[in-house]
């Protein structure tokens, strides 16, 4: 195993921190820690990066414990949420920083080597720019290049896309995934954005209040959530408590509605969103959220009676 976390615990108070975190990461994998703010995902990242000392537990890298190693000696690099680029250095110098101090390369050679990473992230021509003069997306690339330049065994990314606007976020998401597969770097990615988690990860670790709730592939997490917490955090879902104490989860896109004057359900409200239409329907007992795709579903009216067909449901 490349990285193994064993019973890692760091508590700031009862609800803040990480409790008994166990995780195995294999070479080349893309792992996402997913959860709302305050769930402990950043704490977990800081423990792995060496910025925090755990209360209990061990961090093991290829069978060697590295729990007591300071961050500058760990073969792990971080891309910070705020990027943390050094404002007194230019783009090239920022990237060269880790080459010089982590890899202990002679100063002259570092700039040359940094140039290669500039190419990897596609920032040719920006070498001598002050980092303050770059756009958010460019700063993000510098941060990525700078972290990769130390040749880390693991790259940690702390919500690296959260400061970017929606379209750029999409593009960089793909770039990061491509880069990861091309270079074969192991990445641990922290986010509260479910679509980032689903689209990027080999494995998703869902966290809440310092605890790991579920570990699984994106499909497992989406289609077989272990709890209604996971279900409601990832994707939208209708959660129905059955009489026998069972909970039924129905994804809104797994409900098909058809106009039917004898149908059980009535449309309470609807919102047209272009690629799909969101409907709220109820039959007096339960009300359901429905996502209906395409033009064929855009012509309903409030008050219409409909028949609802559930194509997939999850029992917990």
């Amino acid at each position, binding site marked *: 195993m490349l990285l193994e976390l064993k019973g890692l615990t760091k508590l700031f108070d009862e609800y803040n921190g990480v409790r008994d975190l166990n995780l195995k990461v294999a070479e080349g994998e893309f792992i996402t820690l997913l959860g709302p703010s305050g769930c402990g995902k950043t704490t977990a990242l800081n423990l792995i990066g060496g910025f925090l000392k755990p209360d209990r537990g061990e961090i093991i890298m290829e069978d060697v414990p590295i729990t007591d*190693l300071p961050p500058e000696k760990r073969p*792990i690099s971080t891309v910070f949420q*705020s990027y*943390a*680029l050094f*404002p007194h250095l230019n783009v090239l110098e920022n990237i060269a*920083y880790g080459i010089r101090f982590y890899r202990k390369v002679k100063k002259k050679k570092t700039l040359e080597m940094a140039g290669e990473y500039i190419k990897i992230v596609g920032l040719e021509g920006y070498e001598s720019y002050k980092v303050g003069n770059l756009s958010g997306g460019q700063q993000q690339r510098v941060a990525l290049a700078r972290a990769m330049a130390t040749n880390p*065994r693991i790259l940690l990314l702390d919500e690296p896309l*959260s400061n970017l606007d929606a379209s750029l976020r999409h593009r960089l998401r793909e770039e990061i995934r491509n880069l990861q597969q091309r270079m074969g770097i192991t990445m641990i990615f922290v986010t509260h954005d479910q679509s980032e988690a689903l689209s990027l990860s080999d494995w998703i670790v869902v966290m809440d209040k310092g605890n790991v709730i579920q570990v699984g592939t994106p499909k497992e997490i989406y289609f077989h959530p272990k709890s209604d917490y996971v279900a409601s955090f990832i994707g939208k879902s209708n959660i129905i408590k059955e009489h026998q104490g069972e909970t039924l989860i129905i994804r809104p896109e797994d409900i098909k509605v058809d106009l039917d004057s004898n149908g059980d359900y009535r449309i309470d409200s609807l919102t047209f969103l272009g690629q799909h239409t969101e409907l709220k329907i109820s039959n007096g007992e339960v009300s359901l959220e429905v996502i209906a795709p395409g033009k064929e579903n855009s012509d309903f009216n409030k008050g219409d009676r409909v028949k609802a067909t559930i194509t997939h449901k999850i029992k917990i």
Partner: protein
Amino acid sequence: MEACKDIWRERRLKNLLSPDSLIEKGLILLIVVTILLFILFPIIMVISTSFYQQGVIDFGNYRNLLSSANLELIRNSVFVATLSSLLGTFFALCVALYVFFQKRKVGELIYRSLMITMISPPFISAIALIMLFGRRGLITHGILGLSVNPYGWQGIVLLQTLSQISLASIMLISALNAIDSRLIQASRDLGANPTQTLSRVILPSIFPAIMSVLFLFFTMNMADFGTPIIIGGSFNVLAAEAYLKTFSAADIGKAATLSVLLIPPAIVAFYFYRKNVGKINTLSEGARTLKGAELNFRLPVIIRVFIGLVTGAFFFSMVLKYGNIFLSAITTNVSGELVFTWEHIERFHYRYVDAFYRTLRMSVMAGLLSSVVGILLSYYTHRLKLPLMKSVEFVASLPYIIPGLFFGLGYIVAFHNEPLLLTGTMTILILNCTFRHISVGNKAANAAFENIDGKLEMAARDLGTSRVGVLATIIFPLLKSSFLVSFINTFTKSMTTVGPIIFLATPRNMVSSVLMFHDITNGRYGLGAVVATVLIFITVSVNLVAIRFLSKEKEEKPAAERSLRKERGEKYAAGAKGFN
């Protein structure tokens, strides 16, 4: 790439022997110990000395305070200090308002002139007053044919008032610039005219700054012994008496007691100063600040004319002062006629060059040391948030407000015995200047850190730098401007100060400003003027270079600042928690 894959495995073993965290612990210890030893210890020593007489605890010094002679001294001090700080603050407020509502270019020019007139050894205006308006004064006697006596409390008040206007104006201008301009716009929008806006919004907004200036100068004027000795004539004050007691009568106990009396006003000044600083720091995130000139805002003519006249009169007096000092350096007054002479300059050359080099060395050393210590103190207090460092920082801010006389006395009492026998050395001068001005570097660094992403040090560590390496490659390069501000401040003050080091400079380690003080008190105005001219020339040149450098830095800043502001805004938006 494969080759460097396993660097960490070998390095892991070296970790245990790493001197890095030891160096850092040593550094922190050094800072804490020196601050306690060279700030807190002397202060405690002065206070305890005031309670001792011939080795036993005794309140005799305090009982004697209430003698009628001492009560008169206190009354005189309070009277003079109150009057000159009120006048000084009022005139400074006029100048500040004038600059604030002036067009950008003119305002900038006046502001820079203020920064330069701020640099001046204390009480050298006394030379100008005596030479121009004294019994044989060029203006009163030479032109008007009068024989005016400049000595007395009026002279003290005039000189103290004039000498504090530059610094006070600068402090008030920065307070004015820090007002959220939306408040002014809102006031106008809600129907207040400019005069009402001035009295209901602008003045209340800078009230803490005004109080801070008022009490700061009250403290400084209470502690000022130079001006009363030179120009007070038979009018004596507390600080002058404390000085004379130490200097001629060597009655340290009494001097200590008298200088302890200078502390209460200092505490009030300190309270307002902290409040003022707090206010500027908590300026709300979206606050927009505009120069007054950019607001469509015109004060009534009568106010504008008045503040303009005050500003003009002030600068006229500055021209007179500096012109006269330079003139005095190369002339001698032969029965009302000015005659050119090399005499003063020759005397300077033979006697003072040595002291001058010493002063320069002392000021440079003190400037460097106080900046390094001040920045490190800020780093460990506010960046690494080490426990108890806030108290150490508080101790470090004490000398800023404590009268110089008191601080100098403290060094004499604290460091005249083995193993800390430092009196009469260059070291004691450097230490005194270093620790007296440490809080400026500290404050400058605190302000700079506010604008620096808190994750930078983490990033640097992550990229392979040691704790100490972070200081060298990230913190100090980023704080270049703060370092320079602090260096220049300490350098300037050390070059021109007299109060704290007058007791510390002995014939063995004499410095220029103290020599100048003795020359002036002994009536050798020409020689004093040469020393003053040299001091002013060197200090102003160094300051001009620094100002130039700083404004260049500032021009490069906007882009970086923009991105930082954005970053900070977004950090709040994302609700991310700070990393401790």
